């Protein structure tokens, strides 16, 4: 356990050093997009992973953040320096405020209905971006100030801003996971009605997690907007964003702390590299799909839970095979009071 902080520091140092060691713009471009998606998946996991509510409309908040920054920059004549970075939290707050009524409505439903409602909300948001021409200029899009810095240094500020948001999202995710509030969210995931009956304030708890995730995703949308310089409705409000962050989280391990980051680290560079090398032939999408299939076949629970399980099995096996080591607690035998399935099944009939 003691080596854990050292490992984390080493990983952090590697993340910080990455663009300095590999200043090649192709690599840093992929790195910028990867940290953005890693942070978005982490934020999405705070809501979807902990509560079990699969929201597929967070692109609405990504787009809200992106358009917020673009509109603010136009109206306030924000200079093209580091000022837009300082405005990211404000854009996150705007996305969070937008998410509040949407969450209030959507969270009245559960399961499949909730998924469909969030998808519908995303499409409404995209349509608004097309049709509210007065503020969004419709399909003509909006331009952001073009950063003053350039050359090899161009990607650096975006990378570090994204990394900072990722670390912040990770810290919030960690804190929630270890708090009583987070325990309530996990209880909601397992049995919401039972959680309510044990005093968990299920409604406000779910809504808060929804708003927190929207805040981070909104900030990331704004960062992305400043990075790509001009935004259009189909790209700022992109259905693929919804699918991507969900896939990354599923692949890494939904509900785990680092699973979403791991998923993003694998999928986003893979997608970008495939696009670079096989982009013209269209084969990159096939490759991407094949990779996903392999993961789903081999690791249906996601990478982190699978590794955790294998590791537990391996250490247990190793402990058994070395007789002179102090015996750890053996896997618990079924208690003498455990039930014959036939008897257990009988108790499940009866009235409701």
């Amino acid at each position, binding site marked *: 356990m003691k080596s854990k902080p050292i490992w984390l520091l080493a990983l952090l140092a590697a993340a910080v050093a990455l663009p300095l060691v590999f200043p090649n713009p192709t690599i840093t471009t992929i790195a910028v997009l990867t940290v953005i998606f890693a942070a978005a998946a982490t934020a999405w996991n705070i809501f979807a992973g902990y509560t079990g509510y699969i929201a597929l409309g967070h692109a609405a908040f990504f787009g809200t953040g992106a358009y917020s920054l673009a509109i603010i920059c136009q109206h306030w004549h924000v200079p093209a320096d580091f000022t837009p970075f300082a405005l990211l939290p404000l854009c996150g707050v705007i996305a969070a405020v937008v998410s509040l009524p949407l969450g209030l409505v959507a969270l009245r439903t559960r399961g499949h209905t909730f998924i469909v409602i969030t998808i519908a909300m995303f499409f409404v948001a995209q349509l608004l971006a097309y049709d509210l021409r007065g503020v969004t200029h419709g399909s003509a899009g909006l331009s952001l100030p073009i950063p003053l810095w350039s050359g090899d240094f161009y990607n650096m500020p975006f990378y570090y801003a994204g990394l900072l948001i990722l670390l912040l999202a990770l810290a919030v995710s960690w804190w929630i996971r*270890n*708090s*009583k*509030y*987070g*325990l*309530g969210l*996990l*209880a909601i*995931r*397992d*049995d919401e*009605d*039972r*959680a*309510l*009956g*044990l*005093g*968990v*304030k*299920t409604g406000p708890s779910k809504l808060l997690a929804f708003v927190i995730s929207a805040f981070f995703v909104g900030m990331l949308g704004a960062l992305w907007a400043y990075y790509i310089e001009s935004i259009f409705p189909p790209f700022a409000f992109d259905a693929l964003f919804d699918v991507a962050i969900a896939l990354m989280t599923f692949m890494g391990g939904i509900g785990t702390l680092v699973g979403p980051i791991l998923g993003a680290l694998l999928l986003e560079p893979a997608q970008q590299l495939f696009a670079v090398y096989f982009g013209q032939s269209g084969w990159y999408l096939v490759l991407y799909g094949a990779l996903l299939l392999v993961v789903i076949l081999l690791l249906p629970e996601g990478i982190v839970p699978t590794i955790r399980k294998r590791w537990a099995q391996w250490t247990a096996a190793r402990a058994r095979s070395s007789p002179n080591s102090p015996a750890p607690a053996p896997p*618990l035998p*079924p*208690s*003498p*009071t*455990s*039930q014959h399935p036939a*008897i*257990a*099944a*009988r*108790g*499940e*009939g*009866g*009235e*409701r």
Partner: protein
Amino acid sequence: MSMLEIRNISKAYGGIQALSACTINVEQGKITGLIGPNGSGKTTLFNVITGYERPDAGAVNFNGTPITNAAPDRVFAHGIGRTFQLTRIFPRLTVLENMHVAAPRNGSMGIFRRWSSAHERSRAIELLEFVGIAHLQGMPAENLSYGQKKLLEFACILIADPQVILLDEPAGGVNPTMTNQLADRIRLLNQRGVTFLVVEHNMEFVMGLCDTVNVMHHGAKIAEGTPIEVRNDPAVLEAYLGD
């Protein structure tokens, strides 16, 4: 003194009258039994008391305070804990985490602190020892046997120190050894002042445990008395053997 008063509760699902003017009193410090054939409305009554169902008519009072239509979390905060006929625990949380879900926190910021304080942890383990599953504390709850899950669900609500506990078929599908163990625990808690309302089909369990027994049939109470009185009541025999 009547701690939990259920007065003239009616509840219909479409054309089916699950409860019709059902009145039951639960005396403070007693173990009250609730029996009746399948479909007689016992579980529906539990759902109405604990806020999972809204009654069409009638009132529920707890220590003189009306709690009719209060949401489940409010009912729980008043001091009414319940277990379910189909045991409901949180399968992917560990046994110890399950124990902490219902632990009360003071103040609005209380829930934003760590999920387990030293005090809460020792209380949780104490309760797990009380029901005899403390050795399983690190296990995911889904790995427990059916009987162990029932014990966990029971221990879960004890952490909030409820004044009255509603048990929905605590002995259903559980072997005799564990049934006896559970009855022991219920008696011990009762001696410490906890009131119980127990739905159960196992007559031996009910007769050995309860101070008074209410019998329901077709959504209404048809008899009330000591276990012996109820056992010899012709209306009760009719309900179970007739139709």
